[in-house]
C-alpha cells in the first residue's frame, strides 16, 4: 500500500454513525532508515557522553510513529526532546540527589550500626521494584499523551502509585513461588495498563483471567528449568575439565610459582566466557518461553476491547523466538550499540501483527481528559525502559 492511494479505502473512513472495521496497522518504516538513525544516534551519543539520547529517542519515535498507519492516517508523535531532558533533570534533583545523600550518610554511619545497613538494604530492595513500576507507568503515560491519531490524543489514566505497589507485590510473589505466579503478574499489570488507556474520550477495556495462560506457562517453566540446568551443568563440567588438565588461563586459589598468566589472557577468557554464557542463556530462554509469550500476546489482545472493537494478535511461537533470538545476536555483536535497532524490530513486530475487528463510531470520539504530563520519563531513564 502506498501513501499515494491515500484517498480512501472503502467508505469506512468517512461519514458518521457506527461502522464495521477490520483494522490493521500498516508499518512503512524502512530498515535502511532505521539503521541510519541508529548509527547517527550512536555517534552523537558517544560525542556527548550519551546526553544526546533525549534528542535521539525523540527522533526515533517521530520516525516510527509517522510511518505507522491506521486507516491510511499515520500516527504522530508530538513529544519534544526538551520535555525528556527536563523530566530527567527533575528526577535527578528530586529523587537522585536525596537517594545518593542517604546512601552516603549510611556509609558514613555504617560502621556504627548494623541495623542501619539492614534498614537501608530493605529500603533499597522495596524501593527498586516500587520505582520500577512507577517509572514504567509514568513513561507509558507520557508516550501515550504524545501520540495523536486523527487529531485525537491517546492517554493513560489511573494511579501510578497503585501500579508501583502492584509491581512490588507481584514481583516478590513471583520470586517466592519460583515464578509460578508469573502469568498472574503479567495479567494484572497488563490489565491495569490497558484498562486505563484511552483514545480521546473512549477507554479501552480488558477482561481476562490468568488461568488461560497456564497451559502454555507450564511447558515454558519446565523447558526453561531444564535448559538452564543443562547450560550451567555443562559450564561446570567444562571448567572442571579445563582445570583438571591445567588449561585454565588463570588458576583458582593463587599461583604456585609457575609462570603466571598475563592479565590480558585472564581478562579475555572471562569476557568471552561471560558473553558466551549470557548469549546461550538468552537464546535458550527465548526458545523455551517463545510459545508462552506468543500465547500471552494473543490472549492479551483478545482480552482488549475499545467500544465495539475487539483486538487480535497474530503471533506464533516460532515468530516470537525469531524476533528475540535475532535481537540477542544483534545486541551481542554490536556490543550494545544495536539495542535501539533491536527495539525497533520489536516495535515493528508488535504493530505488524496487532489488529482489531468490530464496529465503532469514530466520528463520535472526542478529545479526552487523560492527564497530560508536562515532562517525560525521568524515572524510566534510570531503569532503561524502552529506548523507543
Amino acid at each position, binding site marked *: 500500500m*502506498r*501513501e*499515494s492511494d*491515500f*484517498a480512501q479505502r472503502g467508505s469506512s*473512513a*468517512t461519514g*458518521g454513525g457506527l461502522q464495521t472495521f477490520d483494522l490493521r496497522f500498516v508499518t*512503512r518504516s524502512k530498515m535502511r532508515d532505521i539503521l541510519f538513525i541508529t548509527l547517527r544516534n550512536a555517534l*552523537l551519543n*558517544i*560525542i*556527548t*557522553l*550519551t*546526553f*544526546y*539520547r533525549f*534528542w535521539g529517542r525523540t527522533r526515533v519515535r517521530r*520516525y516510527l510513529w*509517522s510511518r505507522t498507519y491506521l486507516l491510511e*492516517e*499515520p500516527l*504522530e508523535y*508530538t513529544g519534544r*526532546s526538551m520535555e525528556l531532558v527536563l523530566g*530527567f533533570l527533575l528526577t*535527578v534533583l528530586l529523587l*537522585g540527589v536525596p537517594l*545518593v545523600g542517604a546512601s*552516603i550518610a549510611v*556509609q*558514613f554511619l*555504617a*560502621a556504627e550500626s548494623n541495623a542501619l545497613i539492614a534498614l537501608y538494604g530493605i529500603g533499597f530492595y522495596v524501593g527498586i521494584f516500587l520505582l520500577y513500576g512507577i517509572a514504567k507507568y509514568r513513561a507509558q503515560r507520557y508516550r501515550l499523551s504524545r501520540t*495523536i*491519531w*486523527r*487529531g*485525537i*490524543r491517546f492517554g493513560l489514566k489511573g494511579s501510578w502509585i497503585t501500579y508501583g505497589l502492584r509491581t512490588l507485590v507481584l514481583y516478590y510473589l513471583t520470586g517466592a513461588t519460583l515464578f509460578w505466579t508469573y502469568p498472574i503478574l503479567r495479567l494484572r499489570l497488563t490489565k491495569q495498563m490497558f484498562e486505563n488507556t484511552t483514545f*480521546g474520550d473512549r477507554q479501552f477495556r480488558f477482561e481476562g483471567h490468568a488461568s488461560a495462560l497456564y497451559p502454555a506457562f507450564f511447558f515454558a517453566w519446565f523447558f526453561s528449568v531444564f535448559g538452564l540446568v543443562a547450560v550451567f551443568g555443562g559450564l561446570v563440567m567444562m571448567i572442571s575439565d579445563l582445570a583438571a588438565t591445567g588449561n585454565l588461563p588463570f588458576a583458582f586459589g593463587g599461583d604456585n*610459582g609457575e609462570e*603466571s598468566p*598475563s*592479565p*590480558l589472557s*585472564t*581478562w579475555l577468557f572471562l569476557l568471552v566466557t561471560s558473553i558466551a554464557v549470557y548469549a546461550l542463556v538468552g537464546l535458550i530462554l527465548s526458545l523455551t518461553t517463545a510459545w508462552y509469550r506468543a500465547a500471552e500476546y494473543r490472549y492479551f489482545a483478545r482480552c482488549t476491547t475499545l467500544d465495539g472493537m475487539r483486538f487480535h494478535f497474530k503471533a506464533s511461537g516460532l515468530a516470537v523466538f525469531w524476533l528475540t533470538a535475532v535481537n540477542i545476536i544483534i545486541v551481542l555483536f554490536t556490543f*550494545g550499540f544495536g539495542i535501539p535497532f533491536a527495539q525497533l524490530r520489536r516495535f515493528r513486530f508488535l504493530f505488524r501483527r496487532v489488529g482489531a475487528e468490530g464496529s465503532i463510531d*469514530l*466520528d*463520535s*470520539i*472526542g*478529545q479526552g481528559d487523560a492527564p497530560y504530563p508536562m515532562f517525560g520519563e525521568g524515572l524510566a*531513564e*534510570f531503569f*532503561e525502559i524502552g529506548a523507543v
Partner: protein
Amino acid sequence: MQFPAIYFDGRSARRHDVLVDITDRIVRIFELSGARLDTWPLKKIERTHPIIRSGPLRLRNRRNQTARLVIVDGAAIERFFELLPHLREVFYTTRRLTHTALTLAIITSLVVSTFYIAIPRLAKPIAEAIPYELEERLGRATMRSLSANWPVCEGEGILAIEQLVRRLQSTRMSEVEISIFVVDSAVSNAFALPGGIVIVTDSLIKFMKDGDELAGVLGHEIGHVNLRHPLEAMLSQLGVKLFLNMVSGGGSGDLMEIGGMVAATSYSRDYERKADEEGFAILIDAQIDVKAYGRLLSRFGEVEAKLAEQDILGIAELLRTHPYSMERAEIAMALDTLDRTPAMSEADWTLVSALCVKQKDQSGDSSEGVNGRIDRERQSGGNDSQF
C-alpha cells in the same frame, strides 16, 4: 483558488473533507458546503510528518495543539512550498537543526566545564566545611573495611615509625594527629585516608633501602594530610562519579568508568605535586636527606617502565605514570638538605623491615620479590595512588 484537503478539527476524530484557500498570510478552511471551519495564520504552520515521495503534506497550526490539515492536491502542496519554503526540507528543517546543534553545544560545554572546573573547585570548600570529627569517622570506617583485606602489622618497628612521624610533624603547626599503620599487602603503596590516617604497605617497606626513604614517603603522606587532600579527593571522585552517572542516566558504563578514571588521574596529579612540595619542605625542616625520596621514586619508575614494556595493556599506563615518577624523582634530586641526620638508627630500620614478616611466616607465604608484587597489584587492579 481553492484546493481539496482533509481536516481534523482536534475536537473529534471525525474526518472532514474540506476546501482550503491559501493566501500569502492565512489559510482558510471551508466545508464542502461553504461554511468556514477554521483560519490558520501562515506563519504558525508547521509540518507534522516527513515528506514521502508523492505523499500528502501534513500540517498543524502552532496555535492549536491538535487540529490537523492534510494536503493531498499536488498544486496545493506546491503553493505551500512557495509560501513556506522550509516545509520542503526533506530531513530536518534548518531551524530545528540549528536549534539542536546550539543546545548540544551548550550542553557539551556545561558538561566539560563541570567536569574540569566545577567539581575540583567545589571539592575544596566542601571538604573545608565538613567538621573534622566527621572526617575522622569516615577515615576510621574506611580503615576498618581496608583492614579486612590487609591485616595490620604490629611490632616494635611501629614505635620507630611513630617516632619518625612525630619528628616530621613537629616541623609543622598542624593540629592533626597522624595515626600510622603498616599493613600486610602485596601492593607496594602508601596512602593517606581522611582523619590523619597514613597507611604504608610492608611491600613498599621491603622496596626501601633505609629509613631516609621511608621518611620521604611519610613526608609526602603527611603533606597530603596537612593539605587535607584525602577528603578532597574522595569528594571529587564522588562528584565525578555522580556527575557521570547523572549525565548518562546511570547508564551502563565502561565509557563512564574510563571518564571517571581520567578525571581522577588528572586531579590526583595535582594533589601529588602539591604533596611532594609539602613533603620536601617537611624533610628539609626535619633535616632528613631529601634526595633519598628521589632515589626511591626513580627505582619505582624503572620497575614501572619494565612492567609496562611486558604488558600490551600497560601502554596507557606507561604514558601516564612512567615519565611522571621520573619527573618527580628529578625534582627531589635537585633539592638538598643541609646539616642532615639519619631518619632513624640502623637498629630501628632493622625492626621496621621486620614488620609483618612474622605474620607472613605463619601464613606460609613465600617471598616473591618486588616485581611479582607489583605484578599482582596490577592484576588485582590495585590502588595506584603512588604513595
